[in-house]
């Protein structure tokens, strides 16, 4: 008796190798339609087509005037027509141009604010109090004031946009910076970083996930504010009869919708809405997602695909 046997105290056991399973026996052929249905995109396209069909048939059968509710095909036709004549592109480009100048200035202003706040404790108090106070104020409520100060023009819209960008971005950036672990900050100090280099190399990357949420919220608010502002200008034209407001407004998508509504071209209203949706999806899913992928995801700060 070897010591090994004494230890186990039981009989030797041999494992029998189980032969591999025949693949054909367990796999099941599924009908082509079944397999197609399992692809996400097929189902979504089907739903989209079904919705379009319901819309089309619903409008056709209910006999409502096309000034109240155009059919899906009429909307697409109006969209195509708007694209062909270039009216939609011009309107979209005008909106985007205004938004970009507002967004750019807004980011510059809030980065100055945040830098001051980071360097100086009273600055921190100042920025957190002001942004907490002014963030809940809908930017559009400032538009009437802006129109008094800057006239019916681009200046008024950009001022309003600034308000909808600066506070959320500053608020989120401050929250992100406060959440940075002291170890990271001390490491930066250890490397002898201070001032702008400290902000740029340590604070900004570490707070970037939160800053991106701020950028997202700011974009959403700014886009909504811009549309509302263009509609208010439209209202001014029809209500107060301000001549030249179209030029001042430079004819963005909101104005396109408003004008189409005034001219009772409801199909064009829908086409304008479609253009707004397309731009919104592009900015959120391509631009902002792209920034996220290039920064925080590449740096391994968040899970991808969440």
């Amino acid at each position, binding site marked *: 008796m070897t010591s090994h046997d004494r230890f186990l105290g039981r009989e030797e056991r041999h494992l029998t190798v189980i032969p591999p399973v025949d693949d054909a026996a367990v796999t099941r052929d599924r009908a082509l339609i079944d397999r197609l249905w399992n692809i*996400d995109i097929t*189902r*979504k396209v089907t*739903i*989209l087509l079904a919705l379009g069909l319901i819309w089309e048939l619903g409008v056709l059968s209910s006999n409502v005037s096309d*000034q*109240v*509710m155009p059919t899906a095909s009429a909307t697409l036709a109006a969209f195509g027509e708007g694209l062909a004549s270039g009216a939609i592109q011009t309107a979209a480009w005008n909106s985007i141009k205004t938004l970009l100048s507002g967004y750019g200035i807004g980011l510059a202003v809030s980065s100055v604010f945040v830098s001051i706040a980071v360097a100086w404790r*009273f600055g921190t*108090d*100042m920025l957190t*109090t*002001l942004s*907490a*106070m*002014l963030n*809940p*104020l*809908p*930017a*559009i*409520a*400032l*538009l*009437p*004031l802006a*129109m*008094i*100060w800057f006239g019916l023009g681009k200046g008024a819209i950009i001022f309003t946009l600034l308000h909808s960008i600066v506070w959320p971005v500053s608020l989120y950036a401050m929250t992100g910076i406060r959440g940075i672990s002291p170890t990271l900050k001390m490491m930066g100090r250890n490397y002898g970083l201070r001032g702008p280099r400290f902000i740029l190399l340590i604070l900004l990357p570490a707070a970037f996930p939160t800053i991106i949420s701020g950028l997202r919220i700011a974009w*959403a*608010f700014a*886009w*909504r*504010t811009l*549309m*509302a502002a263009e*509609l*208010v200008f439209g*209202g*001014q034209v*029809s*209500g*107060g009869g301000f001549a030249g407001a179209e030029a001042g407004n430079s004819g963005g*998508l909101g104005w396109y*919708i*408003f004008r*189409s*509504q005034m001219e009772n071209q*409801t199909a064009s*209203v*829908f086409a*304008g*809405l479609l253009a*707004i*949706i397309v*731009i*919104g*999806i592009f*900015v*959120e899913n391509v631009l902002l997602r792209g920034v996220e992928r290039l920064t925080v995801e590449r740096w391994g700060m968040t899970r991808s695909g969440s």
Partner: protein
Amino acid sequence: MNVERPEYVVERIERPTDIDISIKRSALAQFLDREITRKAAVLLLVAITWELYVRIGDVNALLFPGFLETCAALWELILSGEIFRKAYYSFRILAFGYPIGILLAAALIVLASSTRIGRDFLGLITSIFQPLPAIALLPLATIWFGFGTSSLVFVTVHSIVWAVALSTVAGFAAVGRTMVMVGENYGVTGIKLIRLVLVPAALPSILTGLRIAWAFAWRTLIGAEVIFGAVSGEGGLGGMVFENSDWLRTDAVFATLVVIILIGLAVENLVFINIEKMTVRKWQA
């Protein structure tokens, strides 16, 4: 082999009594260090700078009223009760729109969590409508419902449904598989599963959705009222902003803005924080 070592006795050191390590700070320094003092100081500073800017800079009060003038205008609006009437008008629309939006979102979510096609449907429709500013629907709403409360309710509902649906579905998707299986083990299915397992587990993100929905709805409502103010001259707080600025009663405009800010702060810091305290924080989720 044993190693013999001398006994090791720990000598207790008495707590020193004759050294005071606390730093003496003046009452003023302690007072200044409190957060509330610092914030109040900031507000005071802003008010003083504002007033001084208007007084010294000799700014036209029609364009930019001072702090005191704004306060006076606010007091007048409170005395005449106008501000309460307008705030009530705005709140009534929210009181209609918010529950309708939540009910619609709930119906969509029940549909989405019971069937796969429902989930696809909700995913598709939210990704279409979420990027569409509700305010852009206002021209359509005026075609359908005219200039009135129904149009305002319509755009408010639109700004609520998608935000709530999106974050609720995301919250449901993040609920652990184990948690759902525990529920199923108890024989809980369908709507009961949603109510008893998914909703409590996903409540943090549902609350986030409700918060975002409130933020969008409030902005949309004020925006819509400003536009209606421009077109037809009626409405709540937003309409009041527009009307007063049209008459160059800038101090009343400022006063209304202050009220809008106060309402926004109150809802965010009193309503939502308390709901959170009563639910999520109590459950330690």
